[in-house]
């Protein structure tokens, strides 16, 4: 029970923190934001590794393996493509035009 309460507390605090953090990301960067968070939910790879390691029969080993492949594709591809995308947002050559304040 204590574990569950701690988990719920972490969940609630993180959700609030997430809302705060993400509301401040400008529209311009929403696609990289989405692909970066996409990569972050690839953390499920951690769970997949644990599940595959615990696999004792053909069924659990198979689904564990598929989960590891899925998770790894998610993590590697997600961070990779985000990096590729963000490298296109070049540093400004000149800062003549200031946005209206």
């Amino acid at each position, binding site marked *: 029970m204590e574990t569950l309460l701690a988990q719920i507390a972490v969940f609630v605090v993180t959700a609030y923190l997430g809302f705060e953090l993400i509301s401040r990301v*400008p529209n311009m960067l929403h696609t990289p934001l989405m692909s970066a968070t996409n990569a972050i939910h690839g953390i499920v790879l951690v769970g997949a590794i644990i599940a595959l390691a615990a696999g004792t029969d053909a069924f659990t080993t198979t689904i564990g393996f598929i989960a590891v492949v899925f998770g790894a*594709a998610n993590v590697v591809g997600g961070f990779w493509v985000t990096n590729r995308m*963000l490298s296109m947002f070049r540093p400004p050559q000149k800062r003549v035009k200031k946005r209206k304040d």
Partner: protein
Amino acid sequence: MQVATFLAYLVAAALFIVGIRRLRTPETARSGNTLAAFGMVIALVATFFVTDTEATLGWPLIGGGILIGGVIGAVSAQKVQMTAMPQLVAAFNGVGGGAAALVALSEFYQTEALGGGGETLVQAITVLLSITIGTLSFSGSVIAFSKLQELAFSGSVAFPLQQVVNALLFLGVLLLSANVVTDGALAEAVGLPQLSPLVSVIVILVLALLLGVLLVIPIGGADMPIVISLLNSLTGLAAASSGFVLDNYALIISGTLVGASGTILTRQMSSALGRPLGKIIFAGIAASGGGDDEDDEEREVNDVSAEDIGSYLSEDVNKVVIVPGYGLAVAQAQAPLFELMETLESQGKEVLFGIHPVAGRMPGHMNVLLAEAGVPHEKLYDMEDINPEFEDTDAVIIVGANDVVNPAANDEAKESAISGMPILEVENAERVIFVKRSLSPGFAGVDNPLFYDMDKTMMYFTDAKQGLQDITEAVKNA
């Protein structure tokens, strides 16, 4: 060792948070992504240290799986066209959701079939949530991918009794879940003893697969950014609930962050489309818009040539705002657009870009496409920032967009399919130039009164790529 791993997960989570925080400006965003990736490495290394496997093939399988998945991910990330980003994000959503569901299924199978049952109520509920949400987001993403890639189910696919079928499927998931939570007591009570908790979970998985397909299939066209955001959010929640299953804080924190992110983007997208989320999910837009306006009278438009536009732009104009829509990306016309910008600027004109939140197929898509073409990001203005600029703008060039500049959206009385959708107020500018293939209305199927304003509007009917090249030439020669 447990403490060390716990701390490592905490460090990883902190790095994810700092990483997202750095996504606030284009200058810091790249380092933010690198930090988050570093956090992921820490979490993975920590996992290796605490994982014991008795299976003989355990480590080779884990290593091999990571290698295969990593190569697939890296190759697709390196090769993907920026126009195809939404498909890739959908694909990653799908595999992420699928992985979360499989992890939960494996965990459940271990305790139920191999361990003789006895999971607690909380375990049962979180397993069910992971499986249902993860599977739904997997099959929904597959459909979204094939829609975006135009493999199948393009546009809005409607079928009879859609909502009844969805409701029944959902009810089925709920009943079976109740059966799992009560450890099969529900099925026995109604005389179906063969419906054990394990069988129920398998059936739930199938129902959730179907539900994902049926929920996404009717949504099409301009609503795709919503679907992508929503699936993103669901996958995050699936990862978070598998964190509850495994009592793993790295998963809970990361999954929740992603869920929050997807939820915010979904909300922003649906308000940018001017329609409540429920209406988008439960009624495809094509069902209402388009086709109902059958008066075929030919209305006159001010049809111009590239030369007309070129001489106008080069002589009478100081400030130009360009409004790109998805038609621009379809025609792969980002590079010619960049050239037009440079040409106009070399003649001393101010050029800005006005970007509607739903321009493109996912949130922020158009910004990426223009950044790829070389447009400096300070020239990319969001809707709220560009609207006040139109007052003193001499010419707006609209390329491959319609709905997002359609003043019909403001006309409350007209009850059009897009009324209430916030638009770029291009009608406030001196002149409006449409570069468009034909008079056909956009996804929403709503005619644009601006087309027929003979004094204000110039219509240039052409392919976006060729048309922009011709206009650039004409500006140079004028």
